[in-house]
């Protein structure tokens, strides 16, 4: 996934040293060191909130929150980040703690929390993001590497909040990466169906149907910083110091470097 992400950066023409990746407790891969971006392992679910601070203090940064607790602990941050259209490329790694898919119980990450499998409805993440105002929504499995890299590249160059959902089982924390359930990765891939531009309302994941993947929506909307500059410029006129890189002014963190 990290390799695919690096490929996405390359395709987008984004230099790794412009990139900050705040993640939540999801993962902390030491491997990120070799890709040259800055990595922050934050508290559970707060990657978007932390990323909001990074972005606002230095609008030149490309901030890419990697989230695993996105829809649980971080649900409200996702909703509000989307509403504000904060410039964040949100990568959500969905490991289905909340749902068996296609009739198969896949809740391997928390076997002790769901010893009898699970029966709850999952979120339809692209639909939620889209309806809250996210400007780009996509979903891929971890094996759709090319498509995923393309989506990441596309999202990185969008102005606003993008959400890319990746279906992937997580490795067992206390063992090793080799413990990833390879069958399950393959299972997601085999049971998926690519439907680009599908209305996000129709892409909910259900036990009966194929997993719909694809690039669902891509639209334009004023970002938080643009709206902020427009509104305050309007009210304060000459007295206002515009914020961010577009205006040639620096953010709260001062000049880069």
């Amino acid at each position, binding site marked *: 996934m990290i390799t695919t992400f690096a490929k996405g950066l390359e395709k987008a023409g984004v230099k790794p*040293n*412009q*990139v*900050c990746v*705040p993640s939540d407790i999801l993962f*902390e891969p*030491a491997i*990120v*060191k070799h890709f*040259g*971006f*800055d*990595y*922050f*392992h*934050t*508290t559970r679910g*707060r990657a978007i*909130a*932390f*990323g*909001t*601070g*990074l*972005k*606002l*203090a*230095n609008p*030149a*940064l490309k901030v890419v929150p990697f989230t695993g607790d996105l829809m649980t602990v971080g649900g*409200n*941050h996702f*909703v*509000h980040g989307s509403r504000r259209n904060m410039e964040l490329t949100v990568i959500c790694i969905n490991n289905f703690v909340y749902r068996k898919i296609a009739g198969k119980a896949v809740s391997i990450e928390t076997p002790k929390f769901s010893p009898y499998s699970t029966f709850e409805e999952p979120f339809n993440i692209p639909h939620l993001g889209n309806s809250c105002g996210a400007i780009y929504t996509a979903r891929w499995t971890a094996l759709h590497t090319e498509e995923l890299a393309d989506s990441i590249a596309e999202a990185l160059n969008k102005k606003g909040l993008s959400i890319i959902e990746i279906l992937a089982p997580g490795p067992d924390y206390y063992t090793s990466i080799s413990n990833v359930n390879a069958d399950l990765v393959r299972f997601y891939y085999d049971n998926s169906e690519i439907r680009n531009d599908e209305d996000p309302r129709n892409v909910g994941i259900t036990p009966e149907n194929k997993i719909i993947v694809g690039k669902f929506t891509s639209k334009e909307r004023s970002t938080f910083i643009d709206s*902020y500059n427009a509104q*305050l410029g309007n009210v*304060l006129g000459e*007295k*206002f*110091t515009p*914020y961010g890189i577009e205006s040639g*002014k*620096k*953010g*709260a*963190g*001062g000049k*880069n*470097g």
Partner: protein
Amino acid sequence: MKADQRDVLTGVYYIDGDVASGYGALAAGCKFIAGYPITPSTEAAEAFARIAPKGGAMFIQMEDELASISAIVGAAWAGAKTMTITSGPGYSLMMETIGYGAMLETPFVLLNIQRGGPSTGVPTKTGQADMMQARWGSHGDYELIAIAPDSPQELFDHTIKAFNLAEKYRCPVMIMADECVGHMTEKVVIPRAEEIELEPRRWYTGPPDEYIPFKPDEDLVPKMVKAGSGHKLFISGRLHDERGYPVDNEHFELKYVRRLIDKIMCNKDKIIELKEEQLDDADVVVVSYGISSRVAVRGIEMAREKGIKVGNLRLITVWPFPDERITELAKKVKAFVVPEINYGQVVFDVARCCHGNANVVLVPHGGAGVHMPDDICDAILLGAKEERKIEKVIEFKTQLEKLVFKGGSKLKE
């Protein structure tokens, strides 16, 4: 480093403490505040939000306090001087990320205008019952700095002081004011920028490839860089080594968590600020902070009129606690009197430092009001009169308590 002229609203004002703190943040060069409105701290955020955009600073109202404090930690790592502002329940919500900030050695300031608690408590009235939460509120071992201003002027001055301490020791700094001080309107003098000394961030300036994020300087505090400047940062809230990589064994725990404590404790002498009056020949010493110290002044005067030799020790810095000073005084005085707007918090640290050498009298008070100076005076008289060594904290019975529990319904009686 001097303050930037554009950030300092030089002049003489008649404003409340909250507003003074907002102006103090501006003067300190704070460029980013994320917050969520909560009484009685809101005016501080309002003051900052009104003026910040004119100087390239930003206030953002986040979705909640959890987001607010996460955002300021993020902004601090991107290079900004940052603060968040809260009270009561909002403070409780921030606890997890205060520990995260301490673990990452992130400089930021948190203004807590304390109100009556617990829970929703008394939102519009005062309290001092978050003092222990300030010290121990987040899980795990860490130390931070907490200061307690007692006037609007101090809320201005100490907000700048808080930023300076945060930068110097790379830790969260709490401004533990209370509603009375926050909503008290008094004269505040904002000096010229060149009279305001600011502590610069401890920037690392060497080659990027040689940067080690948690390698401490001699005073145990490491240097910092801005995110996004090519240092390949790996920064984690997990126990980490100097490079930032996660480790999980007791050797590293001892080495790195211990340093989080030591960098504050070993620099205590430089951090702690106390205000002392007439301690030389005192029989009784009043130890107080925040609004209680303003009330104590009158109580002390009344006791002196009755001929008691009473000194005044005001904790401007509450955490780290001035252990050595209290221990030293305990050998010379008969008693300490500690008025606080809670049922006993800082008083137990006073008692701990006495080592049985002096009596300790707590003058408790519930939230929503302040002490009567008469109570503090009577507590001083009690402390001066008691010749025996009492092996526990003496709880003074206030007039309010006698009034409310006149039927003797209080359980412990």
